[in-house]
């Protein structure tokens, strides 16, 4: 059973639909303790980093205990940003801190007509191998919609460039994250979700 954490940031409908279509057994936990019993934890997210403040101490502790016990944790979009220490978008909100580094605003580039938010399909440039990217090839395109992004750290297994080069996929041990929306990225996105489910199996 996978725990799909709902902390009120945007809607879970599309992630639910994608997990359902993949035949995943999942629940939206009503108490933090349910995360410690799950085979995997997904922290989705749409919108503002500030919303992650609702993942308060009990949730952070429960997710932290699950991760320490080896349970795979998957952050999507703002959920991936939350894996880091914090974000320029909401400096008062503290990240989960599993990955060192802070989230920063994308610069864009007016001359090259690179706008922010970065909205649309962009490519994943692989850096080494990753369980999350099994079956995909470097250059695979996925759907992004965001204004803030993670730095390229040792956990970066795929990077994307939109004026700045940022981490679009991170993976280290049982910590996984994607900046884009796998639930909105057609077959490539479904493959990534399926890979995470396989890691949890």
């Amino acid at each position, binding site marked *: 059973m996978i725990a799909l954490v709902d902390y009120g940031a945007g809607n879970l409908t599309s992630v639910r*639909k994608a997990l359902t279509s993949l035949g995943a057994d999942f629940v939206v936990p009503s108490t933090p303790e349910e995360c410690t019993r799950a085979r995997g934890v997904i922290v989705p997210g749409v919108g503002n980093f500030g919303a992650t403040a609702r993942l308060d101490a009990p949730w952070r502790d429960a997710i932290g205990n699950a991760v320490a016990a080896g349970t795979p944790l998957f952050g999507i979009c703002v959920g991936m940003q939350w894996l880091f220490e914090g974000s320029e978008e909401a400096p008062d909100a503290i990240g989960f801190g599993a990955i060192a580094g802070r989230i920063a605003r994308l610069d*864009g580039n*007016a001359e090259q007509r690179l706008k922010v*938010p*970065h909205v*649309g399909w962009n490519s994943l440039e692989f850096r080494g191998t990753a369980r999350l990217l099994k079956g995909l090839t470097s250059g695979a*395109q996925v759907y992004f*919609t965001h204004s803030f992004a993670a730095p390229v750290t040792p956990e970066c297994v795929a990077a994307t460039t939109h004026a700045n080069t940022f981490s679009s996929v991170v993976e280290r041990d049982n910590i996984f994250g994607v900046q884009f929306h796998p639930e*909105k990225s057609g077959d490539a996105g479904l493959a990534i979700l399926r890979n995470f489910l396989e890691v949890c199996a």
Partner: protein
Amino acid sequence: MLTKRIIACMDVRDGQVVKGVKFQQLRHAGDPAELAKRYNVEGIDEVVVLDITATLETRQALARTINAVAHEIFLPLTVGGGIRSEDDAAAAIDAGADKVSLNTAALRQPELIATLASRYGSQAVIVAIDAKRRDDGFAVYVRSGTTDAARDAVAWAREAESRGAGEILLTSMDRDGTKAGFDCEMTAAVSDAVDIPVIASGGAGSVDHFADVFTRGHADAALAASIFHYAESSVTELKRHLRMHGIPVRL
């Protein structure tokens, strides 16, 4: 590199896809879920469902239609038409929409843009602008194109951006359904005035029209309805053609 998006739009009335010319003479074009299923495999990058009669008949977008469409596609889904309040937007998003498109309501109560942007994020809020050319610029129309809003499209797009809109969906009423090509001048005027992505709409009739609007029109995305509904042009062929012209697309 960020690719240019090809967006399929379904104008929906009474649960069926319809299409008109210059906002008139509607004819049936099929079942929304069936069309969505086709788009999912054909390489469409995004889908927009517009409940076109909603504004006139004060109906909310049909949750059932949204749900049926969302069930068929794992692509970004935008819903517009009759979204007048935070509750209407919440209903559309709960039914499976990723973004909502505001038109008449955004002009009537511009604070709704900020309300929705702070609740769902700017990426979930599209401001749709229906505009016609005039000697002095581009005039905005509301209520499904029936009422002159006494606003200029460029100024209104700037204001929408400053209020928190994440994208602009710009429809040329002069070109809608004509297959005479997008209004590249109007699209470029709006696109150059804002930092958020602009989706060009109205007039798509050939693959060259898309190439035009991405180059001359400075569009970030292009939306079309008829040419995809009636399978007059395959999405893959369109994208190959664009790539040949050096325009980055997802293939």
